């Protein structure tokens, strides 16, 4: 079976989805279900003191018993914030240690601060976390993150929430070629073809949030993304045909064509 294996655990779906930016919990749940995702990201935030007594919590709608929750460090700009956030997340989820690390460098672009990311990853790995790390598409940094023990590398396709798709497939290819742990494109996917391209390059999975939540019809886009990731994966496994500028290789036989009315010698000459 062509399953996605992360930190020793096997998953059928290679599509991972975020749970932010939806209209309400109902839409979140329907979109996540339609996507077929088994791994979903959540953020860790202060509870509203005194205001949430009767209201349902996200985890009531997407329970840890049904999904693999991946707490993230969205909004963290320092090693300290990221580490504290994930310690809280692990406590909140009864010791669950699979986490997504992101340390941001700039609130405008949300580009990751790779120096802080490396430091935070090291600390978290020492504390026993299984770190899936959000990274720039620098192949050297990606490999370093893997070498210090991250269980998955998650390079950006383009900026978070930008929907720009894969801006540098070449770097992504290098990262994939060098990696011994799963490579999961995270950030910047905008539509189905972006996800398919990622999978065709050889990515092990794709993580997206805005692409689905900000679509005009999020549930329909979730369905499209599910198929996009599946078809991209099959195309990759099938081994695509070579690209050539031209090859004079028609799909139909050359012989047995009825008498041509053309005098053009080039067309009438039989193939070698």
């Amino acid at each position, binding site marked *: 079976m062509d399953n996605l294996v992360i930190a020793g655990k096997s998953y059928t779906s290679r599509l991972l989805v975020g749970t932010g930016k939806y209209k309400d919990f109902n839409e979140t749940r329907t979109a996540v279900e339609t996507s077929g995702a088994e791994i979903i990201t959540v*953020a860790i*935030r*202060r*509870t509203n003191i*005194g205001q949430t007594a009767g209201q349902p919590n996200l985890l009531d709608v997407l329970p840890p018993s049904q999904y693999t929750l991946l707490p993230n460090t969205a909004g963290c700009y320092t090693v300290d914030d990221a580490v504290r956030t994930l310690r809280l*997340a692990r406590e909140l989820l009864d010791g669950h240690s699979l986490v997504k690390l992101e340390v941001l460098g700039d609130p405008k672009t949300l580009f990751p601060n790779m120096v802080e990311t490396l430091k935070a990853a090291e600390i978290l790995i020492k504390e026993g976390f299984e770190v899936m790390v959000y990274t720039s598409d620098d192949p050297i940094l990606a490999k370093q993150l893997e070498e210090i023990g991250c269980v998955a590398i998650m390079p950006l396709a383009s900026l*978070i929430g930008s929907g720009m798709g894969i801006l540098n497939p070449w770097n992504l290819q290098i990262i994939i070629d060098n990696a011994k742990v799963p490579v999961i494109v995270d950030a910047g996917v905008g539509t189905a073809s972006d996800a398919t391209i990622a999978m065709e390059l050889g990515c092990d999975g794709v993580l997206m949030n805005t692409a689905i939540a900000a679509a005009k019809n999020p549930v329909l886009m979730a369905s499209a993304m599910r198929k996009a990731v599946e078809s991209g994966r099959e195309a990759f496994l099938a081994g695509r045909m070579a690209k050539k500028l031209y090859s004079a290789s028609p799909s139909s036989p050359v012989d047995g064509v009825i008498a041509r009315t053309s005098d053009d010698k080039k067309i009438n000459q039989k193939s070698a």
Partner: protein
Amino acid sequence: MAQSLHDKIHLIFDCLSNQPKISIPALSSMIQLTINGQSQQFEAPINVTQLIDHLALHGKRFAIERNGEIVPRSQFSEQLLAHGDQLEVVVAVGGG
């Protein structure tokens, strides 16, 4: 012999100053806690379990950090909060 008023006053002052000190018990022990950035007063002693009752968080999934350190669930009833404690109480929310 009749004491002068002056002497009587001195006598009263001497008596008073030799009285053993009587301490008036505190009316209440109020402590100040900062929870999620908001300052609130609570009557001491208060442990973490009681704080959670007050915040109506029972049955929900949350985690607590006290002065930068995680408070494990097993210690909720044992840890007494102190004046000036900074607490972060977090839950999981939607995010990418």
